């Protein structure tokens, strides 16, 4: 029986592991030093665990449709500024509007991975008015902070007025919903 580390073949193996790679399983035995080294170098790579499959999907598609690469790379989401090539690089979309901005190219990726393009599960209930107001309030408060920091006092005063107005509406809505 081999008692030495598979990696350095020098130290006695004390770490016995099961290795899974693309659905194949093998056993590895390592010494502490090699196990630690391997874990450190591979940890960073494993952060985006689903990404390779998604990107493999994109790469595969592009080999067949070279014309699309050009237009794909030019398409950018107007809401958040994320481009299709950004998405291909990092695997994350910038905002909900990207789904529309990247249209068919993204749908192909989704179809590839999800084998579907239609949601049939839970849908959100209609949003209560108070939630909409609270969100607006939070945005305005942040804007106010920024304008004061940048010493734009006139603009800040107008934001403050808007905040008061929304606070008033919010109070009414909450009182109304409490009565109900």
């Amino acid at each position, binding site marked *: 029986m081999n008692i030495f580390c598979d990696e350095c073949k020098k130290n006695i193996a004390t770490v016995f*592991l*099961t290795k899974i790679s693309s659905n194949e399983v093998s056993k590895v035995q*390592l010494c502490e030093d090699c196990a630690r080294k391997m874990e450190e170098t591979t940890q960073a790579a494993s952060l985006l665990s*689903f990404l390779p499959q998604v990107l493999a999907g994109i790469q595969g598609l592009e080999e067949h449709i070279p014309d699309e690469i050009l237009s794909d790379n030019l398409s950018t989401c107007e809401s958040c500024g994320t481009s299709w090539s950004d998405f291909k690089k990092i695997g994350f979309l910038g905002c*909900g509007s990207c789904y529309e901005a990247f249209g068919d190219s993204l749908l192909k990726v989704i179809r590839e991975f*999800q084998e579907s393009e239609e949601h049939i*599960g839970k849908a959100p209930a209609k949003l209560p008015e108070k939630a909409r107001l609270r969100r607006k309030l939070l945005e305005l408060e942040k804007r106010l902070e920024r304008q004061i920091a940048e010493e734009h006092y006139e603009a800040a005063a107008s934001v403050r007025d808007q905040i008061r107005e929304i606070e008033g509406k919010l109070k009414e809505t909450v009182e109304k919903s409490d009565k109900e």
Partner: protein
Amino acid sequence: MTRNKSTLPIQEYLKKEGPGYPFVLSSRARLARNLDGVPFPQAANEENLEIARGMVLEAVAEAVSPQREWSMFFGEELSRDELEMMTEERLISRGFAEQPRGKALAVYFGAGEGIVVNDEDHARIQAVLPGAQFMKALENADKIDGKLESEVQYWYDHKLGYLTSCPTNVGTGLRVSALLHLPALSITGEIAKTIAALGARGIFVRGIYGEGTGVAGNIFQLSNRKTLGVKEEEIASTIDAVVKLVVEKEKTSRKVILREQFIETADRVSRALGVIERAKRMFFFEALELISLVKLGIELELLHIKDFNILHVGAAISPYHIRRELEKDTSDEDVNTKRAPILRRMLDL
């Protein structure tokens, strides 16, 4: 908001036995949600991160936890030790621990429920339970989702469902997962076939410890791949059905090794116990593999020592959980040396 590091409790579900024990260790349901009109965390600037965090945490305080049962932590206010311990208990991701700024965790320690804010998505609602309770875990996550939804508007598309930063989560945003202890399937090598068969059925399998190097401790996580075009309940019931199949395979493999490799198996589990009893220092992955074998030995009635919960012991002997019991500025070697007596204490040896 920063807590003294010693006050972070080990989560309750890690200590409990549920249906399907000792094969099924825990069930988890996770829903990915984003706030309408706010850029996803990966693309958001500091101000947008603040807005999203404020909205989610305010909604938690208003609707999810009006009695203040939940604890809330800002990422940047957590110490390195706390972040690592939370990662070791799978409360947060490695990515969260590495870049905690702008992120947050709201957690109900006693109930196994939590919301991770501004990691990949604005809100990741998770509910964990001991044993095989996938439908119940989904119900718990769904309840929290419903409460959050009464306070905030989610980014939702009528065709694609809940929009997520990675399209692999779009639709339901739901990932249901199971943690299974499968030592006999690993010993016989049958696990390879099982993983291939599960892959064909749209189930992801990975080890929970040592993703890069290899799976340690024979603990595997099964989860659904598809999140779109399938109903939430169906995702949970599929995982439930698949888990039952895998557990049957593990039981068969145990019978096979008892019948065909009795001496080898008895020798293997006894040697593992011998090392735990005598070792002066232990590397983390080494210890995980040893407790997996000893646990198998107990369940096959080859070893007659006190039974233990492998998830609980696994968490308690993780590097940062051990570090907590030592002085500041301890080296890896100190941790490895301390691990041996801690493990003996936990196993009553």
